[in-house]
């Protein structure tokens, strides 16, 4: 079908699709090689519809968005197919028409708002630009409109914000500005590329609410690109699953997530810890293998190499995007068996969905997907199996740490006391800036506490690592969020591990080699990767090496600071499984820091919640996540976008911004934002530590029974999440 035909058709029918991508093929050219990124992608989004595109990083999601906006990198070319936006072929637009079209008809919101805003330009000028160049307004009028735009995205004090620079705003405020800019001229298509990744759960929820609320007013179609399935479930009507440049499944969000019909979708859904799941229940499912490298020849179905259900026919010929429910897949398999094998080629006609059905899956065996074999042992790790005992391995008492920022004094950790049992995992949650990492660094001695004590295995620890004994250094280790910055890029992984073994285990040369081999086997890194440098490893492999490094000296306590946050969900699952496994085999205790509450809930035995430098709640993982719990915890929990369609909680908005650490609120530190605010009592008096049940304490004026009653009353739909 030619472009002319399609445009004619589009105008004949009801309004043209907001976005109509047809058999799109995009190739990147790197060092003389052609690397196909998108291999015949077809999708369309109706006006006003929200479409979610999910998949692991590297599968082509962002490339698709960039192709749709005609903004491919210089080495990327559209080899075939079309992108029609409201019936217009994007590739035919002239430079000037393209410019007008961007910003007026389409707009984009980016993953990292901090880098998406021009650093040296005032917010007002950046937003006003849109009006100046699209509506030809004078500077003063444009600024006036910018003010309205900022008001529309509910930024506090728009006048002051207009004069600010991006670095003066918080991450959530920056993202609001980006959204204000995108929506300034009421586009018909809004592309959201990981709009909440990297933001705190509460901020994420705010942004999500804002997008939902604005959607009702602007009627823009949305293309949401994300790896966060919960986000898609929350916002989108339809979903496409992209794998290695191919749409492998497509359908209405609810049906696709509750009844996936492609093994990859099923795998993605099984990887993420369901909310309320704990490691004692079951190990997390993983997707074996890794995403194929760009340009790697794939035999037949793109997913067959990692698919637990793959059969010979899958590598014989690639399946089409078959309608579901139907027997098209079965027929396709039979046809493929009858035809000569053609494992490498895929032809454009394979790309488009077959038939008009709402759901499609690129699999011969969609019918069997619900019975897809489990990829990991289902048994969980019980406390007993881990050899946990009642003795305390770590005791923190009244730890305090203050930083100086110019003339201000910021107390990052205020009067925190907690204890950690042998073989236990203590999860630490809270928004960024709540003091989690500072506390962890006080434990490891990377930062000296100003006052308070850290007792490890009954011995009082010196405040800085440099003054601690060799044994204490070996026994307390840390795993960081970003393995890229922890592993020396110039060394081979074997050299990195060898050094750690020498330093931490003090082994002699003969046994060092054996120890390095054992460590890498323990973290499931194949020996051939030991010869490579970190840059040649995948993110998951790097984090495995970083974990192996921490375990080189047989530690008794490992502090994990967001160890899986930067990884794809399937990789995250395997890292979490690895940590649980190592805990069982090495009988080690963990302090586990994460902003992902489902992850913390999964891996932790006990959980501590931090707010503004204080530990405001401590208890077993299950108790902390269920009422009665601190109103802040309640708000945090309500803010996570979940995959659950039936038991969706009403989000509890946190009022106002996070107060400054230099001037924390009087009385209860949370009173400025609390939805269960009692009045003067909360403002004037520091709340007592209340005990909900033995071992579960929280810092609030409301007694447990009242709190329980109130919290149950507010969420009748789901009294217990676990």
């Amino acid at each position, binding site marked *: 079908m030619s472009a002319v035909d399609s445009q004619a058709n589009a105008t004949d029918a009801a309004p043209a699709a907001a976005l109509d991508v047809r058999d799109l093929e995009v190739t990147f050219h790197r060092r003389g090689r052609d690397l196909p990124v998108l291999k015949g992608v077809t999708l369309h989004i109706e006006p006003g519809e929200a479409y979610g595109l999910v998949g692991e990083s590297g599968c082509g999601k962002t490339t698709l968005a960039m192709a749709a*906006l005609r*903004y491919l990198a*210089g080495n990327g070319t559209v080899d075939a197919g079309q992108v029609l936006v409201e019936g217009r072929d994007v590739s035919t637009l002239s430079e000037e028409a393209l*410019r*007008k*079209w*961007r*910003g*007026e008809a*389409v*707009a*984009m919101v*980016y993953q*990292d708002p901090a*880098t*998406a*805003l*021009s*650093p*040296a*330009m005032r917010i007002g000028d950046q937003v006003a*630009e*849109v009006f100046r*160049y*699209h509506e030809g307004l004078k500077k003063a009028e444009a600024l006036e409109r910018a003010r309205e735009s900022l008001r529309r995205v509910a930024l506090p004090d728009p006048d002051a914000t207009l004069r600010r*620079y991006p*670095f*003066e705003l918080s991450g959530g405020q920056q993202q609001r500005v*980006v959204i204000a*800019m995108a929506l300034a001229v009421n586009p018909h298509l809004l592309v959201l590329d990981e709009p909440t990744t990297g933001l705190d759960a509460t901020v994420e929820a705010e942004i999500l609410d804002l997008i939902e609320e604005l959607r009702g007013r602007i009627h823009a179609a949305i293309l949401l690109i994300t790896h966060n399935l919960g986000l898609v479930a929350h916002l989108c009507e339809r979903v496409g699953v992209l794998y290695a440049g191919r749409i492998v499944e497509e359908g209405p969000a609810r049906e696709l997530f509750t009844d996936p019909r492609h093994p990859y979708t099923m795998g993605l859904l099984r990887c993420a810890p369901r909310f309320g799941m704990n490691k004692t229940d079951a190990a997390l499912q993983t997707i074996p293998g890794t995403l194929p490298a760009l340009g790697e020849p794939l035999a037949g179905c793109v997913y067959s190499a990692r698919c637990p259900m793959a059969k010979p026919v899958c590598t014989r010929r690639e399946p089409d995007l078959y309608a579901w429910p139907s027997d098209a897949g079965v027929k396709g398999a039979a046809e493929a068996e009858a035809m000569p094998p053609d494992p490498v080629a895929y032809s454009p006609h394979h790309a488009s969905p077959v038939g008009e059905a709402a759901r499609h899956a690129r699999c011969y065996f969609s019918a069997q997907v619900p019975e897809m074999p489990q990829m990991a042992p289902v048994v969980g790790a019980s406390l007993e199996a881990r050899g946990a005992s009642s003795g305390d391995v770590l005791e923190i008492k009244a730890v305090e740490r203050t930083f100086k920022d110019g003339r201000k004094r910021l107390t990052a950790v205020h009067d925190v006391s907690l204890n950690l049992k042998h073989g236990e995992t203590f999860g630490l949650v809270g928004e960024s800036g709540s003091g989690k990492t500072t506390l962890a660094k006080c434990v490891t001695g990377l930062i000296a506490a100003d006052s308070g004590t850290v007792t490890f295995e009954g011995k009082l620890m010196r405040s800085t690592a440099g003054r601690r004994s060799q044994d204490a250094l070996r026994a307390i280790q840390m795993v960081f969020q970003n393995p890229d910055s922890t592993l020396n890029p110039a060394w081979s992984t074997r050299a990195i591990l060898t050094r750690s073994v020498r330093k931490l285990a003090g082994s002699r040369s003969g046994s060092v080699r054996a120890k390095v081999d054992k460590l890498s086997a323990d973290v499931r890194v194949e020996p051939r990767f030991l010869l490579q440098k970190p840059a040649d490893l995948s993110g998951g492999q790097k984090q495995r090496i970083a974990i192996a490094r921490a375990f080189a000296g047989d530690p008794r306590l490992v502090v994990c600071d967001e160890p899986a946050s930067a990884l794809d969900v399937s990789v995250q699952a395997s890292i979490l499984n690895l940590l649980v496994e190592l805990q069982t085999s090495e009988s080690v205790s963990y302090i586990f820091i994460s902003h992902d509450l489902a992850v913390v809930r999964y891996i932790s035995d006990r959980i501590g919640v931090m707010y503004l430098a204080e530990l405001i709640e401590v208890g077993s993982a299950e108790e902390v996540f269920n009422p009665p719990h601190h109103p802040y915890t309640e708000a945090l929990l309500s803010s996570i976008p979940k995959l659950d369609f039936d038991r969706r909680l009403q989000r509890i908005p946190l009022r106002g911004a996070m107060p400054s650490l230099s001037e924390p609120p009087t009385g209860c530190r949370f009173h400025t934002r609390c939805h269960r605010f009692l009045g003067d009592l909360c403002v004037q008096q520091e709340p007592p530590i209340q005990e909900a049940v033995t071992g579960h304490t929280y810092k609030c004026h409301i007694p447990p029974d009242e709190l329980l009653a109130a919290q149950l009353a507010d969420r009748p739909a789901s009294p217990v999440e676990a």
Partner: protein
Amino acid sequence: MARLIGRRLLLMVPTLILVSILVFALAEVLPGNLGRSILGPYATQQQVDILNHHLGADKPLYERYAVWAGHFVTGHWGASLQLGTPVFSTVMRALGNSLLLAGFALVIIVPTSILVGVYAGLRRDSLLDRAITISTLSMTVIPEFVSGVILIVVFAVTLHWLPVSAMPPQGAPFVDRFYYLILPAIPLMLLELGYIARMARVGTVQVLAMPYIRTAVLKGLPRHRVIFGHVLRNALVPTVTVIGSQVGWLIGGLVVVEFLFVYPGIGNMMINAAQFHDVPLLEACVLVVAVLYMLSNLIADIVVALLNPRIRMGG
């Protein structure tokens, strides 16, 4: 911001003291001595010693330094031992000449190199970009004494297009001076153009890859607005720093060029003063150049701060 500037100005004081001590010490280890320089090679050693004693040049180093420093800070820069003229006015005249040469070169270098560099950066990997990158790089590696000699031989001696001397004859109108400065300025331009242009190019290439440029383009801004509003301001930050440090060099470091073109600038004066052991003149020259060097760096940092609100407000 004001505090930052104040602190930087205060920091200049210890730096200048250190520089003055260093120059004094270095003049001491140079072969020869003041008496010999004044009396020439045919005087007897006895005559030289007597003169040195008269001039106080045989006193211990620290004593001579203390005397000189005491005079210098109270504004008594004294007279040049070589020329007999007051140091202050002599140095200032030479400085004026040097500033004229440096300013002339800069006025051409800065806009040209930024233009060329930014243009190459915007057209990254194009034929033109490669041509610019290679030609500016090859210009940078030619030392100024080589290019200077070639220029003199070709344009002055052979073709007679430009004068050999860098100074017009006495009584010529001031404008003529620029005509005479063309030849000496070219070697400087060749050196600096390549350096600054490459900085501007790299800065542009880096900024173009930033997500906020994508934002600006996808906002539907016209190309000129993207470049002038978003790219340049951020791309030129490293370039400004480099220009700052090069200005210092252009003013005080032109020893070779001034020598080659027999130009009465401060660089030439420094050489002569050092050879003659004319310490008061040498010290004054060096310190004036040091002050200008530090000031130009400070100005560059202020410009950077003006371009970057984060630095401006953090200071």
